[in-house]
């Protein structure tokens, strides 16, 4: 390397460094005008009144308690000297206490309602999609006490109430970020604009200084350069405001995820319920398909076979006592009918074989590797198959893996125009991972009611996952991950 070149190097680096610095500064300057910063600010502004509204709740509770205590004290006083008022105050105390209890009972549903509002705001403004917790389990029309009991046991409702309680201090921080950092920062930017207007007084007059709010105290400004300083401080505040807001909002987002979602156990139950529903539907659909296939296929073929044989028998029976020509004609018809029946019986066998294989491939009895090898061998496109599984997975897993492979191979052959397909099956820890890739044209989309969606549903019944990567133009890579033991 020549010296000249070496000498040029730092200079170029320097320019590159400057450019990088400039672009970094530009990026920092762009943050306050980014959509995200404004949406986060909006979230803070929207939740401040909500959070304050929540304050009404404990206030009402304490108010009612104080009122009840006051009233009962009053009624004791009145009881000392009997009057109509004593008879009046007793029921009022009861009404107030009932209102207190009603408020307690209503807390979980109110918490749920406000939680839903927060979830919607988070989804709309922060892009944070928190799934709703499962609804309270209710058994149709139930007695009022049962309703109250179920409401009081509503875990997610109480968690939402807890969130609203914790949210109260957070609301102050959100208000701080919005009002002090954003509001005051933007206000400070305006000082140099209006300062000269109000300060064009004669030099002898002394005016009290103007206050400018900053997070670290109040600036007192009485000169134009002071106004410029206020502007600079304001600019710094506006640059920093998005980060302050983001910090607060991040904490709020974490809180919301932890307390407004379904909860881990509830989520798991919901997942399992869905998986069970899928499994039940899947097996019902399979049975229906088998019945339909039998009804429209083998059964009708066998009925036709029986009918042809019946007609042939009929022809052979009526043979006696007829002319030779008629007998020969009947024989020819009978032969034709028997030949039809023969063909029909063979077709019925082939159809039954196909159906039986569709229910449970016999090759699976020797393990997934053998079954997949048989499948690969019968595929019209060359298949590069690697199977490396330590032990044998449970039969249900083997069956699902096999049908996934069969469907994916059929898809690849039918739609992708691939020249080669690679199937790789491996055990990874407690999971069976099958990758099916082809060099075809890609663009496979899991659509409603499509084969891929059906597969994904089937896989989910055992806590498995199916991922499809198939950009237009290819290649297609499908990964199926199943537990080894279902």
């Amino acid at each position, binding site marked *: 390397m020549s010296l000249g070149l070496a000498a040029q190097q730092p200079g170029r680096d320097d320019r590159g460094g400057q450019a990088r610095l400039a672009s970094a500064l530009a990026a920092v300057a762009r943050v306050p005008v980014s959509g995200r910063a404004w949406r986060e600010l909006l979230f803070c502004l929207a939740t401040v009144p909500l959070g304050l509204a929540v304050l009404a709740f404990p206030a009402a509770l304490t108010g009612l308690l104080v009122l009840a205590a006051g009233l009962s004290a009053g009624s004791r006083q009145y009881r000392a000297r009997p009057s109509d008022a004593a008879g009046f105050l007793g029921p009022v105390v009861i009404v107030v206490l009932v209102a207190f209890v009603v408020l307690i009972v209503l807390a979980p549903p109110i918490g749920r309602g406000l939680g839903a509002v927060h979830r919607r705001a988070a989804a709309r403004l922060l892009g944070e999609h928190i799934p709703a917790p499962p609804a309270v389990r209710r058994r149709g029309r139930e007695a009022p006490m049962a309703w109250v009991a179920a409401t009081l046991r509503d875990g997610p409702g109480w968690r939402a109430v807890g969130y609203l309680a914790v949210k109260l201090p957070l609301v102050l921080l959100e208000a701080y970020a919005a009002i002090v950092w954003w509001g005051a920062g933007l206000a400070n930017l305006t000082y140099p604009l209006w300062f000269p207007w109000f300060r064009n007084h004669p030099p002898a007059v002394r005016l009290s200084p103007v206050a400018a709010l900053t997070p670290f105290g109040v600036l007192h400004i009485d000169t134009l350069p002071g106004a410029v300083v206020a502007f600079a401080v304001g600019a710094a505040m506006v640059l920093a405001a998005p980060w302050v807001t983001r910090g607060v909002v991040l904490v709020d987002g974490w809180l919301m995820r932890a307390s407004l979602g379904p909860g881990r156990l509830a989520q798991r139950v919901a997942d399992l319920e869905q998986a069970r529903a899928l499994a039940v539907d899947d097996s019902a659909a399979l049975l229906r398909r088998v019945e339909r296939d039998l009804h429209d296929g083998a059964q009708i073929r066998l*009925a036709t076979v029986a009918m042809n044989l*019946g007609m042939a028998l009929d022809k052979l029976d009526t043979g006696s006592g007829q002319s030779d020509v008629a007998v020969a004609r009947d024989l020819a018809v009978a032969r034709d009918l028997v030949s039809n029946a023969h063909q029909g019986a063979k077709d019925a066998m082939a159809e039954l074989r196909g159906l039986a294989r569709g229910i449970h491939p016999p090759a699976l009895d020797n393990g997934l590797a053998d079954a997949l090898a048989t499948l690969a061998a019968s595929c019209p496109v060359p298949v590069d198959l690697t199977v490396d599984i330590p032990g044998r997975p449970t039969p249900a897993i083997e069956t699902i893996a096999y049908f996934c492979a069969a469907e994916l191979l059929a898809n690849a052959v039918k739609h992708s125009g691939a020249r080669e397909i690679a199937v790789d099956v491996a055990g990874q820890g407690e999971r069976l991972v099958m990758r099916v890739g082809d060099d075809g044209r890609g663009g496979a989309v899991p659509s409603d009611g499509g084969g891929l969606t059906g597969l994904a549903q089937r896989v989910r019944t055992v806590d498995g996952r199916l991922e499809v990567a198939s950009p237009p133009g290819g290649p297609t890579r499908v990964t199926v991950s199943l537990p080894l033991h279902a």
Partner: protein
Amino acid sequence: MAGLTVVIAEDAALFREGLARLIESRGHRVAAAVPDGDSLLDAVDEHHPDVVVADIRMPPTHTDEGLRAAIDLRARHPGTGVLVLSQYVETRYAARLLEGSAIGIGYLLKDRVADVADFADALERVAVGGTALDPEVVSQLVRASGRADGLATLTPREREVLALMAEGKSNAGIGAALVITESVVEKHVASIFGKLRLPPSEADNRRVLAVLRYLGA
């Protein structure tokens, strides 16, 4: 009997063609062979057949199109016999078919076409206003019947005769099936009606209804 005009409705082409061939081999005329219930109604309006052979399960819904078409047909063409074929028999379907009257109604398993002579006999019976119920339907009815006490009073032979009556067979048909003379059949029938306290009736299809009602269909 020969020379009936027949319309066939069956969605499986192979079976439809076989059925047409079978019916024609018995000397009848197949005026139309169609694949679904709607075209069945059109074909009947056009050809005015003596009897219709219809599959129960046909497109579009593959549930009970044939049955509904058969019930429609009874209202629109009361003189046309309807023989419904199915791969399963359901007493509920039989009850719907026989609602009100058993004139010109048949309900058979598809398997029965294998016995060509019996099937042709059932077809001809339905064409002239008789009844043809599948033995399977009858045995289901007998099994599910709440009249076990009454049925227990019958001799085994009488029970056989009762089942054949329920299938819609005439005395001659019952005699042929059990290889006994018609007069013996008549004696059995009289005894059955006496034991079960059924009103005696001459017409075969009234007799079918009486027996089926007794069995609780």
